[in-house]
């Protein structure tokens, strides 16, 4: 094939190249295959939005504007129960802290039971793992609702909900961390004649502790977020106040609480990042 400069290129040239290299040119079928998924997705969204009665969004406009105005315009701020709000926020923090702590302690035990290199009996490991799958499969909010039914309204239900769902997730992460460790230290400890508990304490723990600490701190962060929501089902904390104020049409207070919660979450993120760096930097230096 002769080389042609861009000016002298004719349709005939293009046709020859098309004949020689059909794969380099777009074909109608290729175009259809390329755009079909997108078209299906668009049609799907339109159909489901119609099924979900999208039109209601347009009808709602007369309710939307007053609501948004009530969120932004804060009236009678001196009569708000600030004490109650900040007690609620500290309760949320306390729930997240206790739940994560209990979850961590529980996972320390369960994580070792679910780790392949620690637990010699496959059957125990399988049972523990399936149990953890179930704990993880049910959402934290559902656990919250269940525990509200079991122990009544209040932060105790929230702590238990966070504990149970953390137990499911953290144990899995812990057991994976335990499975990924270096065997040599463990064998070294075992060679000195140490018992199984000493092997875990001096062989495994020093290697996995930084991972454990950083993961638990991550969970403290995310549990602070979820603890604000747990109150919506009655499991204590600031969420209870949010939904109470919302039902009483005190939208300005709802907005105030949400802004406070967002600031709190931001602070916790920052603090937990600092602690994590401190704790892990400390461990790797040694």
């Amino acid at each position: 094939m002769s080389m042609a400069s861009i000016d002298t290129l004719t349709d005939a040239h293009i046709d020859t190249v098309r004949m020689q290299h059909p794969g380099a040119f777009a074909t109608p079928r290729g175009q259809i295959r390329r755009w079909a998924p997108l078209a299906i997705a668009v049609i799907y969204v339109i159909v489901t939005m119609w099924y979900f009665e999208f039109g209601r969004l347009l009808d709602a406009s007369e309710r939307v504007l007053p609501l948004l105005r009530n969120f932004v315009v804060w009236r009678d701020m001196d009569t708000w129960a600030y004490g109650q709000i900040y007690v609620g926020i500290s309760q949320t923090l306390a729930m997240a802290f206790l739940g994560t702590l209990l979850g961590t302690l529980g996972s320390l035990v369960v994580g070792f039971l679910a780790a392949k290199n620690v637990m010699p009996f496959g059957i125990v490991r399988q049972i523990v793992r399936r149990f953890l799958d179930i704990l993880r499969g049910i959402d934290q909010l559902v656990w919250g609702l269940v525990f509200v039914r079991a122990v009544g309204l209040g932060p105790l239900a929230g702590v238990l909900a966070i504990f149970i769902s953390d137990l499911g997730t953290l144990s899995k992460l812990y057991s994976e961390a335990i499975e990924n460790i270096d065997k040599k230290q463990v064998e070294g400890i075992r060679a000195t004649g140490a018992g199984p508990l000493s092997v875990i304490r001096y062989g495994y723990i020093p290697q996995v502790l930084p991972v454990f600490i950083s993961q638990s701190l991550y969970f403290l962060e995310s549990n602070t977020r979820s603890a604000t929501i747990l109150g919506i089902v009655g499991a204590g904390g600031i969420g209870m106040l949010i939904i109470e104020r919302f039902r009483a049409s005190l939208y300005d207070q709802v907005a105030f609480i949400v802004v406070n919660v967002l600031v709190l979450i931001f602070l916790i993120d920052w603090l937990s990042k600092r602690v994590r760096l401190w704790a892990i930097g400390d461990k790797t230096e040694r």
Partner: protein
Amino acid sequence: MSDVPLTGGMARVGGRAPGGDAVSVFERHRAELRASKRGWTIFAFAAFAICLGASIWISNFFPDRLAAGLPRIFEYFGTVIPDLQWDVLFEGRAADGRAVAGSITYWYTDFWTYAVLIWETILMAMTATLLGASVAFVLSFPAAANLAPNSWLYWFSRRFLEICRGIPEILLALVFVFMIGIGPLAGVLAIAIHTAGALGKLFAEVNENASSRPIEGIAAVGGNWPEQMAYGVVPQVSPNFFSYAMLRFEINVRASSIIGFVGAGGIGQELNRVISFYSDDRVMAVLILVVVTVTVIDLISERIRHTIIGRENF
């Protein structure tokens, strides 16, 4: 004792200190380090103990309340276990339409109600993921530091995505339920907004790692900014985008199964009703269906992700 071979940094610390051989210098240095570290350890433990005490006090997590609550937890879980009898387990409905007590049919009397709601839940998750992902897709280009056409647009799209993912879905759903009434639309919109924020951040990170050469190539042949994005960036990042969107879909199935707690559609509404008003085997029936659905969706989505990613990469 200068003839003792010293190694490492210890030699410089105090190798020739009067009256100190290498071992005692080392021990002294170690003691100093330990002392300084002990201060921090005590501080950390004190802070931890204060946090623990305060949170126990604030959340009323007292041993007596826990002891009173624990038996009730087991009692409750006892009541939600279905009373199945082996001999009539697979018994169908009798001629008059009544199910035999102890059979699966009896346990799952409302199966079709649940099935319709589960189907609605999955539809909600899919629609919300598609809507959220398309917003995230559009905003991820201006929100990537290396691709943003100007700093104003960059700042604006970043903040917008942060606000979208900052507010919990269920709060958004609460507001939407108030505005447009009870039903799945509120849930779809709430999840879509949260998805847009969460995926937008991930997509923008993928974009920031994209190679700049194809973009420069498109720019060199005269492509404008949208063309640079469409032909320079999208082909590189689309497998990652797809994978993240599928992961988000799995998360959204969970989210849409609980968003009904505030009246925003899906199985959550039924779950809330069943848990709040009954304490019998219906709770277990719905929970099992939800867990099975979530697990099956996870498995399918994992399959699809691996097939697509495998095909794109190799």
